[in-house]
């Protein structure tokens, strides 16, 4: 591997930008393709697919045997609301490989006793969220049920283009939330991005089951191609 390629690969990874290293396994020739350049790459479709699955693979193209090594940033999950569902959701997400942070200004909720070993930020979203570097490789859920906390958090998630945004609440609650967010400058397409009621419809009842429904929905959004994604939702 040329030093320039290694240097660029490390820089992209440090910046949490996905890349794929394409290696001709016979000649050793290599090139690094950034996700934003996939569309105009001759291997575009394969690159898109492998990045979506987060899986490295071998392909043959133009008589060459190529190894596609996927470097995707570790996905993050930001949970706003240190509630009962979150106590089940945080360890579940962590077992799936997510970096998890729980945010809740209410110190009685955001206590280490309730969330052993999970990073907690007991601050309002305006203070807690900017340092978390919320980005397109972040799933974001707002589950406090309190508009004073959930609404500013959701506005931040829109701005940072999180790959998944979910919020707790019935259809009725969600309609009211839409009105409030619009009044604060959110667009229709922002509001359409919120998964609410949150989680896949699996008949979840207990907090742990709701956590499973949420993680299943996040996984579907992360891994399925766009068309199947609509069918799953």
């Amino acid at each position: 591997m040329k030093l320039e390629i290694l240097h660029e690969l490390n820089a992209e990874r440090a910046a949490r930008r996905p890349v794929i290293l394409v290696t001709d396994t016979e000649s050793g020739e290599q090139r690094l393709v950034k996700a934003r350049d996939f569309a105009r790459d001759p291997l575009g479709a394969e690159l898109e697919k492998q990045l979506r699955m987060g899986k490295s693979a071998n392909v043959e193209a133009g008589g060459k045997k190529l190894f596609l090594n996927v470097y995707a940033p570790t996905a993050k999950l930001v949970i706003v609301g240190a509630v009962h569902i979150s106590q089940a959701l945080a360890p579940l997400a962590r077992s799936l490989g997510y970096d998890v942070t729980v945010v809740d200004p209410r110190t009685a909720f955001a206590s280490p006793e309730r969330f052993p070993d999970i990073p907690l930020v007991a601050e309002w979203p305006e203070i807690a969220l900017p340092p978390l570097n919320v980005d397109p490789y972040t799933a974001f859920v707002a589950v406090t049920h309190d508009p004073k906390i959930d609404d500013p958090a959701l506005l931040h998630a829109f701005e940072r283009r999180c790959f998944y945004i979910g919020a707790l609440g019935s259809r009725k609650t969600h309609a009211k939330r839409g009105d409030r967010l619009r009044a604060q400058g959110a667009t229709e397409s922002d509001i359409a991005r919120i998964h609410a009621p949150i989680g896949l419809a699996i008949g979840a009842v207990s907090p742990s089951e709701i956590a499973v429904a949420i993680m299943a929905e996040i996984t579907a959004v992360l891994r399925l191609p766009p068309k199947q994604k609509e069918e799953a939702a």
Partner: protein
Amino acid sequence: MLDRDEDILKAAEDWQKAGRGVALATVVETWGSAPRPAGSSLVINDEGTFLGSVSGGCVEGAVVTEAMDVIQSGKPRMLEFGVADETAWNVGLSCGGTIRVFVEKVG
């Protein structure tokens, strides 16, 4: 796992910049119950120090030996380990899988 791989690639860059000969070994294909998935990597310097793993410990010794040759020659090579292969049996990919490992010089 991703975080650890990231440290490995950073170490590869740091070692190379410090003037060491460096090679990178990457799992490119697996069959059966291989312990580490494609994309896993191991970085080796010319003192024989290595970080990371391509098999969770089974074939690292053999990979390091080959990597020393690659650092010398500068030519990449493909290694294959599996139960059908006598050498691999000797070095012990005890899990019963087969892996192919691409070894290349850095720099």
